[in-house]
């Protein structure tokens, strides 16, 4: 039997960040996860392996594009086994790193599945066999999320994959259908498209990346429409059946049903279902505590990430959107500080979101769409990358930087970016918003030339109608 001050259930980026901070603060900590090392979906089956593959996809695309610059490489030859090894090596290196950190910090690592006994104890069915009971003062539930698989899309055939299956790179299918135009589908679809698959994306709503600002999505959609075979919007998959030659998929356009129109059929070698993720809150024994789960399956927590059971906290995907690793890590650290007796809360002003397609898309803080929904009066300042010297040298002038600004205080409320490297650039926006920077601050901070980061500064200049590289006089008010 183990007696510990804190037990963390789930070793993803939220769980292990929490466990490590708790150890650094001098608490005794146990960390429970089914994998051999901490990392969770993010490192094993999510952010990290997909980024390794997207890096390669970008290289392939660039090598093709280089022809326009006078450099020709010929058609790339893809050794799928070696690519898979590279991806696995990336994952292996990162997870052995977190494993080392567990040892250095003397975190008690329990490989296995937890079942909660009551508000102060749980049992772990160990991967090595046997059961270990753990007495704890506090617990943090960080069980994450799972790919959603609606029953209608559930086909018992290995050719119908979720994101985990697609990351395994079983083969390069001649044709691939991606169901769902969210970030996971677009990222993995891009990988397969670069490797040579004819990729079709089907999305139920009128646009890709629902919820994000349309002007940013438009830039991404234009390029996607070139790399993918086709993008079907306002279209649902009504039937999927495994056949010898592939997966037969029946589509239906929105409104077609009302007109009595029949769906259209198409056969794909493989199908990737990426219609979202659902919280993994079905933790055995959770009903033996006062922890409450809402209708969508999220564990309910307060601003300190405490559940209805005072000794139990919860963080990450299992407590709510956005389901992002960096949000989970931050929440994990907040929960630990609360447990350590600090009066702190999870109160970010800007959580960045990045879509690692080509071009990348990133945003943080208030979006224009959200402002419109909430009837907030905001001023939008945009700087098109066509006016950026750096973007022109990259032969990528399709990008866009935009600022969402409070017209009264001129304070920065949100940032949206689309273009190569947007994911790196967004961090400046996060810092600016968190620090309460206004448009003048951004304008007066010297940005290095020639870089894409200048577009942040020049967007602020656009706000004042004084951008060096955009002629756009301030309108008379």
């Amino acid at each position, binding site marked *: 039997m183990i007696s510990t001050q804190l037990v963390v259930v789930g070793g993803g980026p939220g769980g292990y960040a929490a466990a490590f901070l708790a150890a650094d603060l001098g608490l005794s900590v146990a960390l429970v996860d089914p994998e051999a090392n901490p990392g969770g979906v993010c490192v094993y089956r999510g952010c990290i392996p997909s980024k390794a593959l997207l890096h390669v996809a970008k290289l392939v695309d660039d090598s093709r594009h280089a022809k326009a610059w006078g450099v020709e490489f010929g058609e790339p030859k893809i050794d799928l086994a070696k690519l898979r090894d590279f991806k696995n090596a990336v994952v292996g290196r990162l997870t052995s790193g977190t494993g080392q950190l567990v040892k250095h910090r003397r975190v008690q690592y329990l490989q296995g599945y937890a079942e909660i006994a009551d508000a102060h104890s749980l049992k772990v069915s160990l991967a090595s066999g046997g059961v270990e009971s753990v007495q704890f003062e506090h617990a943090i539930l960080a069980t994450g999320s799972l790919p959603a698989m609606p029953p209608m899309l559930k086909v018992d055939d290995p050719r119908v994959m979720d994101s985990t299956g697609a990351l395994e790179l079983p083969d390069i299918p001649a044709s691939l259908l991606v169901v769902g135009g969210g970030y996971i589908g677009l990222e993995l679809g891009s990988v397969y498209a670069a490797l040579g698959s004819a990729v079709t994306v089907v999305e139920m709503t009128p646009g890709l990346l629902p919820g994000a600002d349309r002007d940013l999505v438009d830039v991404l959609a234009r390029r996607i429409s070139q790399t993918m075979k086709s993008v079907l919007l306002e279209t649902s998959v009504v039937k999927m059946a495994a056949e010898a030659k592939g997966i037969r998929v029946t589509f239906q356009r929105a409104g077609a049903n009302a007109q009595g129109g029949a769906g259209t059929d198409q056969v794909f070698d493989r199908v990737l279902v990426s219609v979202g993720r659902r919280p993994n809150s079905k933790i055995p024994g959770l009903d033996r505590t006062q922890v409450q789960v809402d209708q969508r399956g999220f564990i309910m*927590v307060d*601003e300190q990430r405490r559940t209805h059971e005072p000794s139990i906290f919860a963080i990450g995907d299992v407590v709510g959107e*956005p389901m992002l690793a960096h949000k989970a890590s931050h929440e994990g650290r907040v929960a630990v500080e609360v447990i350590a007796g600090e009066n702190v809360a999870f109160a970010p002003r800007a959580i960045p979101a990045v879509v690692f397609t080509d071009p990348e898309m990133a945003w943080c803080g208030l979006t224009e769409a959200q402002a419109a929904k909430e009837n907030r*009066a905001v001023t939008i300042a945009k700087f098109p990358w066509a*006016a950026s010297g750096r973007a022109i040298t990259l032969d990528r002038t399709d990008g866009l930087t*935009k600022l969402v600004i409070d017209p009264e205080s001129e304070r920065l*409320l949100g940032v949206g970016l689309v273009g190569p490297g947007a994911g790196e650039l967004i961090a400046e926006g996060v810092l600016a918003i968190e620090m309460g920077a206004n448009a003048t601050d951004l304008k007066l901070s010297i940005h290095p030339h020639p870089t894409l980061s200048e577009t942040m500064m020049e967007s602020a200049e656009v706000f004042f109608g004084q951008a060096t590289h955009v002629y*756009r006089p301030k309108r008379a008010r």
Partner: protein
Amino acid sequence: MTDFNLPELGENIAAGDVLRILVKPGDTLAKDQPVLELETDKATIEVPSSLAGQVKEIKVKPGDKVKVGQAILSVEDGIGASAAAPKAAATPAPAEAVAVATSPAPAKLPKAAAPPPPPEPAPRQDKVVDISRGARAVAEPVASSEFPPAPAAPSVRRMARELGVDINQVPGTEADGRISVEDVKAHAKRLLAGASRGVGGAAPVTSVELPDFSRWGEIERQPMRAVRRKTAEHLSAAWATIPHVTQCDLADITALEDLRKKYTKPVEAAGGNLTVTAIAAKVVAAALRVFPQFNASIDFGADEIILKKYVNIGIAVDTDRGLLVPVIRDADRKNIVQLSVELSQLSEKARTRKISLEEMQGGCFSISNLGGIGGTYFTPIVNAPEVAILGISRARMEPVYFKDGAPGQSPVHGAFVPRLMLPLSLSYDHRVIDGADGIRFLRWVVQALEEPFVLALHG
């Protein structure tokens, strides 16, 4: 009526898709005001109007494909020529730069006539807030009730939380009202100072900038004791919040003094001291029954006056630690002997520091007798949250004019008679007690002291 046609937008841009229409029929359109958002294969652009006037009809809708020259909307009293070449077309520039030039700018969207509804508050359930939201919104920040959010860095916000300060209430002193760590600390200090003063929270014990007194001679600095500090804060608050009126009068206690001397011994036997203060406590307790508005407190928060159905009298006691006010409970239900005994005990406890906090709380009215030392009149400060206080000074022999002779003597016309006169000062809170009631109360006290039968009659 004039039509506004889609102007030339730049080289190689012949058409575009309407994304959004930014005006509606009836709007007053200004020249250069953006009227629609157009998506071209180069960029998404806002199209400014070349006309001014009232929008009559909008001829396109979102999703329409429009060509250069196509009518977008019609304007009544159109000012400015639709034929005039729009700026963008007139600017010779490469295609990309043109797209840029007609591209986004900080355009104020036309405001809707009705004020926007306030955003819905976050749903609360007990102390646990459900912050999860629809699966579609990917990266919105946790909703904040204040908009725009307070301009403070995360470290400053965290400190505010730790100090129990609402960051949205902290005035920022840095450029553009940004809030610094010092601002949060200063605000917390102000809050603490306000809280310790209790009622009202106004009236800070101000620290006036002091000259260097040692320039004029030797000085000594002593730490301010807790009692002194508390008294200072309490009296500053009372003085600053209560509009005081002090009403004075004289009581002829010649007869009372004879009685007091006569009954000194039996009271001493009971363990008390038959003092003017003890007798005054009995008289005031009876007076509070007759004038209930003097046994009250004001609750401004509730817009109510609280009337107390019990009579507890506080007696100011001079101690080496400073002024203390022990409280005699239910003074109206005790006789003068009991009051004398209790007062002796409480005074002794106060002087020997054995008095408990409990024994100094719950007073309804205070009496301060400085007559043992001297003085004629003074202006006592109401012991908030009470509403009145009686000050007693030293009684002395005075010549008093009696038209019909002194009491108990044969009538003599127009005689000055030596009488023992007691100066009384009643301070009251003018917010709840009118001047006429003030003097009525004091006259009642004077009469009861002059003719103790009044106590039995009305008290």
